[in-house]
């Protein structure tokens, strides 16, 4: 103990402490934010269920087909049953356990969320940074392009793209991802505009830093807070839109346990069997609610100016 204290030079100690305390401070503020904490909890449950889907709902052994994933196993003698001890959410029209399908569906939702936000964030951040940093002609061109994209309501743009590319999970993610680019681009552009004018940028330029270096090493790190908040809320929008497209038949093909597609299938039996529509939708609502709350909480902690 004593030896280690002697080894550390004071300056290192101070530096270490400062770095830790900044993150620590953020976490302390976040912890006191009930909305954010509930959101974080819900999102952690989603991630947990996606990672351990095979443990929570393990593959089933079928005498004829062999090992079958839990979300595909059909118990045809038990179709459209109601919640029981064996099937907490009941079974669907093919005798598949709805609980198992909802659990496995979390993988797809999480994948959709990450890929969509990934696409729109990368493209949006690049467009927004270039527009904000260079200004003038490049700004005009990029922003007019963004205006055009914003003139088409998101869900309609996605319908148009998926209709052209064909239904399927990958095309669905591309469509929703493209639709979300404007949000990121505009957000990043306005952040870049304010950071660009600060003195440390001028200093970086004075010592000969190149544009790319200034943009990505000096400006962007200072725009991270709003980007993180947007990404969290963007994930909620992505999951919601993807489920909506699957619901109208433009997304994931049936046997896949996607929540929107499950709703669409269950809808045919709405008169006699409520579990097929209640539980998949509840899962979507809960995850979107969680992500929105997490986003609200992060915004309060990271960037109070964003608070509307």
């Amino acid at each position, binding site marked *: 103990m004593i030896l280690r204290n002697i080894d550390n030079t004071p300056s290192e100690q101070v530096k270490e402490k400062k770095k830790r305390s900044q993150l620590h401070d953020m976490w302390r503020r976040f912890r006191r934010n009930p909305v954010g904490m509930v959101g974080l909890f819900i999102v952690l449950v989603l991630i947990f269920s996606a990672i351990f889907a095979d443990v929570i709902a393990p593959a089933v052994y079928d005498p004829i087909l062999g090992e079958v994933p839990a979300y595909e196993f059909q118990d045809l003698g038990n179709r459209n049953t109601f919640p029981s001890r064996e099937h907490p959410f009941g079974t669907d029209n093919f005798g598949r356990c709805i609980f198992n399908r909802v659990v496995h569906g979390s993988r797809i939702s999480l994948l959709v969320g990450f890929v969509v936000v990934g696409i729109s964030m990368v493209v949006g951040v690049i467009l927004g940074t270039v527009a904000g940093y260079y200004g003038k002609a490049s700004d005009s061109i990029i922003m007019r392009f963004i205006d055009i994209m914003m003139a088409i309501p*998101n869900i309609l743009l996605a319908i148009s793209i998926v209709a052209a590319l064909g239904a399927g999970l990958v095309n669905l993610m591309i469509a929703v991802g493209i639709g979300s680019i404007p949000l990121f681009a505009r957000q990043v552009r306005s952040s870049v505009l304010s950071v660009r004018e600060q003195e440390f940028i001028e200093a970086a330029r004075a010592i000969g830093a190149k544009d790319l270096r200034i943009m990505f090493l000096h400006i962007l790190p200072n725009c991270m807070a709003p980007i993180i908040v947007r990404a969290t809320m963007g994930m909620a929008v992505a999951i919601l839109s993807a489920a909506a497209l699957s619901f109208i038949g433009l997304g994931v093909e049936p046997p896949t346990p996607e929540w929107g597609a499950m709703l669409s299938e269950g809808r045919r039996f709405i008169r006699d069997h409520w579990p097929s*529509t209640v539980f998949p939708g509840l899962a979507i609502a809960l995850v979107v609610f969680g992500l929105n709350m997490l986003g609200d909480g992060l915004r309060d902690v990271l960037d109070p100016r964003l608070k509307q």
Partner: protein
Amino acid sequence: MYKYILKRLLMMIPIILGVSFVIFFMTYITPGDPAIMTLGEGAPPEAIEALREEMGLNDPFLVRYVTYVVNMVQGDLGNSFMTRRGVVDEIMDRFPTTLMLAFYGTVLSVLIGIPLGIISATKQYSIFDNAATAAGLLGVSIPNFWLGLMLIILFSINLGWLPPSGIATPSAWILPVITLGTGSAAMVMRITRSSMLEVIRQDYIRTARAKGQKESVIIWKHALRNALIPVVTAVGLDFGFLLGGAVLTESIYAVPGLGRFMVDSIRTRDFPIIQGGVLFLAIVFSLVNLLVDILYAYIDPRIKSQYK
């Protein structure tokens, strides 16, 4: 004022051209030969080739786009593969229903959202405020297609109070309007609340209080006028999103509007209807935004003076 309106109308032209290019491009890359789709699979090759020539499908990309725009300006978006009728005629038959639905949805969101937002802001951090804030977050998180299904289960199937589909009677409109308007009501409430919170902290409100003005007059007259400005923009934007959201709501309740027609066309691969419908709704959306901006300039003289 006329100058401002004219200027805004002119600014809309490049946006509409851009939108039409995006939609044309989607039509261009959509798989399937429109000539074969129109004549049927078994048609003789010469007939198909003749129709291809007649439809201009053999022309270069840019020529086809120019033809597309010229036709669009003349109100021709091609013919439906299914009914052979003009896309615009098909759209016009159904659009009034969608417009009504979106209009009622907007009215509902204003009637619920604005009063709740005001009360929430004037009683900040009270139980009412916390409950309303939570409900608002929940309202924006619940997928409206799922909410629609849940309302059908509760009010149509279990209680038998309201019809689950169609718009034959006035009471049949209730569920679709609630389904469509809830999310927007939550959004309007959130914006009203934050805008109101900002306004009631301003000096002129303190002055009004100091001179002994009644609190109700201060809130509902002095503060509300200024607080409503951002709300107007939000409601206008929202109306456009409701036109898009109607796609889902209409298909749940079998409302014979444009949205449901587009969803049905996805199933029958009637691409001219899908792309034409998206283009049409995007243009309507742009027009609504223009109207909102004009209204905005009307209620806030500060904006108008910027455009002199």
